[in-house]
């Protein structure tokens, strides 16, 4: 039955029907819940003899305690260091010996763990995931925490500190969100808090968040729903349900002023950042804000690219994006000036373009172009079982509906030019935003106006 639905989709495509209007994107799945509260989602795709396993724990850096920033991510690392029946190092060794790849990632809202394995090794992946879900602490030690603490500190150095402009994101969230807001610190955490993380923190965090009733498991690929269910029941049923997790208390993200910051960095060229608060993922005008970002900076004909890079040639690059999160989103613009140009010049042009789009809607073609690109990207994300597994889990995590593909796409298709103008008016205001200038050392004269200096 599931295959037939997919087959119908393909036939429509092959017959040259307009995919855009006529065909629903659907990723069929079966779902069941174990008595311990673990939500399980299975999607069959037999095109390659490969299975993707994807586990979400519904906890991210947004649930960390003050003084322990970076802990959710440090914990993610510790999850690979062995559990009661999986000696240290064997998690990766056994998977590699079976032809599997694995990794994990942490963001503000969730932590995911994923394996891609040949279909004969599905049970191994489930054994490993279940053992660390059920029995991590039996094998935990302060030494393991120390080992991964050093690794994570090097991750911070490699991904942030030793990168040009690498500290921008960390400084931006710190100043964009009110003090104490769960998004006001970066997922990577601070060096001081990473040093402070203790063995006891690991125990508490595991018991609070890493419980089956706070997890969801997706299996996508070359397996039948029945076989997948049998294996999941075998390995996960015995894991006890935990206490209900503390509810997310929506924290107000606001900025009642314009903050203008300056930071010097070891860079050749100055870069300007502008950030605003926008509504949470899948609420309000979230998709409209994505389209607004595309109209502003996706492709040669986008407004900011065209003015700054193509026509005036005063910028090397410009980006715009709406980074969506459960508690709120960030609308982000950055632009790098070319030699001989200042961030004041860039800001003046950006201001003109923002004013323009607040006063007059973009053309239908500008909006349709952005929507069409989103639509194609939805197809591209259906190609691999690991992508599908992660998206099913993400949709489940955020909406309760794993097969939210068509609904998600429909949000973009429903956007019209006046919506885009309205979004710009509502969210991109001059007096509630963060403006950060990063300039080469000793060249504050290249900055936009600033009222506060921050240190790298």
């Amino acid at each position: 039955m599931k295959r037939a639905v997919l087959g119908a989709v393909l036939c429509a495509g092959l017959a040259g029907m307009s995919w855009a209007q006529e065909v629903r994107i659907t990723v069929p799945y079966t779902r069941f819940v174990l008595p311990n509260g673990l939500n399980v989602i299975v999607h069959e795709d037999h095109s390659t003899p490969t299975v993707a396993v994807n586990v979400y724990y519904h906890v991210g850096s947004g649930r960390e305690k003050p003084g322990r920033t970076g802990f959710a991510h440090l914990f993610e690392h510790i999850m690979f260091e062995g559990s009661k029946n999986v000696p240290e190092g064997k998690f990766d060794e056994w998977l590699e010996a079976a032809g599997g790849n694995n990794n994990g990632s942490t963001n503000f809202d969730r932590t995911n763990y994923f394996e891609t394995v040949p279909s004969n090794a599905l049970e191994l992946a489930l054994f490993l995931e279940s053992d660390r879900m059920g029995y991590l602490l039996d094998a935990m030690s302060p030494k393991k925490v120390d080992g991964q603490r050093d690794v994570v500190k090097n991750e911070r150095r490699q991904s942030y500190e030793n990168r040009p402009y690498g500290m921008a994101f960390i400084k931006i969230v710190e100043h964009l969100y009110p003090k104490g807001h769960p998004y006001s610190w970066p997922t990577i955490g601070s060096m001081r808090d990473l040093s402070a993380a203790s063995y006891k923190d690991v125990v508490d965090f595991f018991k609070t968040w890493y419980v089956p009733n706070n997890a969801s498991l997706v299996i996508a690929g070359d397996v039948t729903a029945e076989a997948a269910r049998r294996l999941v029941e075998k390995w996960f049923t015995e894991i006890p349900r935990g206490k209900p997790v503390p509810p997310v208390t929506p924290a107000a993200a606001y900025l009642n002023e314009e903050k203008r910051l300056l930071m010097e960095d070891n860079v050749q060229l100055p870069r300007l950042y502008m950030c605003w608060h926008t509504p949470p993922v899948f609420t309000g005008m979230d998709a409209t804000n994505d389209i607004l970002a595309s109209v502003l900076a996706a492709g040669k004909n986008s407004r900011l690219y065209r003015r700054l890079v193509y026509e005036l040639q005063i910028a090397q690059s410009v980006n715009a994006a709406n980074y969506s999160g459960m508690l709120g989103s960030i609308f982000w613009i950055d632009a790098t000036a070319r030699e001989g140009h200042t961030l004041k010049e860039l800001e003046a042009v950006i201001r003109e373009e923002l004013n323009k789009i607040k006063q007059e809607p973009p053309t239908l073609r500008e909006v349709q172009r952005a929507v069409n690109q989103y639509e194609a990207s939805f197809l591209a994300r259906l190609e691999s079982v690991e992508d599908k597994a992660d998206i099913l889990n993400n949709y489940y995590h955020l909406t309760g509906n794993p097969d939210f593909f068509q609904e998600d796409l429909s949000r973009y298709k429903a956007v019209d030019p006046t919506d885009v103008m309205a979004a710009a008016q509502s969210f991109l205001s001059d007096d509630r935003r963060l403006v950060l200038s990063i300039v080469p050392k000793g060249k504050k004269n290249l900055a936009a106006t600033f009222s506060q200096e921050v240190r790298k």
Partner: protein
Amino acid sequence: MKRVSLLVVLMIYHALFVLGDARAQKPNRSKPPELGPPPALQLPPIQRFTLANGLEVVMMEKHQVPLVQLNLLVRAGTAHDPEGKRGLASMTAAMMNEGAGDRDALAFADAVDFLGASISVTAGMHTTTVALFTPLSKLDSALSLFGDVVLRPRFPAEELERKRLERLTALQQWHDEPRIIASNLFNKILFGPRHPYGPPVMGDERAIRSFTVDDLRSFYSLSFSPANAVLIVVGDVTRAALAPKLESLLGSWKGGPPFTKPWPPAQQVESRKIYLVDKPDAPQSVIRIGRIGVARRTEDFYAITVMNTILGGSFTSRLNNNLREQHGYSYGAGSRFNFMPLPGAFMAFSDVHAEVTDKALNEFMKELRGIASITDEELERAKNYLALSYPSEFQSVGAIAGALAEVVIYDLPDDYFNTYTSRILAVTKQEVERAARTYIDPDKIAIVVVGDRKKIEKGIASLGLGPIENLSIEDVLGKPPVIEKK
């Protein structure tokens, strides 16, 4: 105590929900589950046909998602840059979709973006690829734009000025990037200024300033020709449906003979030397270690691939396990052989905490010396990892097109994909150890370190690994270009 209460909870749940369900017996966790036999990769056949003008088409149908990938592989790239015009292949490629057919650069970009398609042109070392990725529903329109790029690029002078400025600015920005500094120096040391793998692909400031529209046109007409190209197609199309479209799109394309060029041999690294580039205040040191490896078509390809997987090609590899897991010096460490038509680089790499740069180098040396002896367990794990994960690389049209490009460029047999697994599994311990002895000589390597000299030089010197040459970033990259104000 905690364990007892857990058990109680478990028993209650069993009693409430799963009692009597035979499938939910308590599993045996004392050892990992036995795996059944691994599944075989069964790919659709590689289809080959030729257009009227002689253009070869290599195709694989892939019908899961209505997408199409079309890559024209032209057998000319950076290695074909004329004397004194390093970077011309790369600039020509970058300019090919800056206006084509009857559209200028903006109109062309708008047309492609509006389809939700993408068309990119990239110069590799020996090939230039025009890549189209499109939803099937937009295939006809996308093909027409693809044809414009391949057959009718406009090379407008004002777009060349834009690209020139963009690239000169990129050269400035390289001075910020320790990894780019390291790889530029590493290639320069291994291959020198005259070998195609030595200098940066984009060329230096002088070359970038020298390119003219005529240079681009001339490189284009020498390299773009049906006799010098292969078209790779993967996606939700059939040969029967596609062949007539390709014939009408490209069938009338004419051009010159294959573009051949001789290359000077590179001088192998014959001693151990350290090149230390000062990046003041860098919190990490970027380490790149290696020598010249071997060409892709070597008989030793499979043995080297297995050997490198053990050394630094997987998460559990010796380098990553040592530098990351055992010592916490780094977020990751690894190694790779750059398999190319001519012998490419072997390189071991990591970014390490500045304070432990010397200790990390010491561990690198241990692993490079030790790889000539491996265990049976490592061998089996590496072979299985490579062989059994292979099918998962054939999921997207783009990835399959990339795999087909390898078959085309190195003239591999059409059963290459289907025999890869068995060839890897047949590699013996003796072959791996011989490959290590042949291709990894820890006494004859270049060691590049980009980091904070005042913090790391003394420690590195005390290792006694060899002479240290101190360099500045400008010694490696030259002065940043001075850009005239717009």
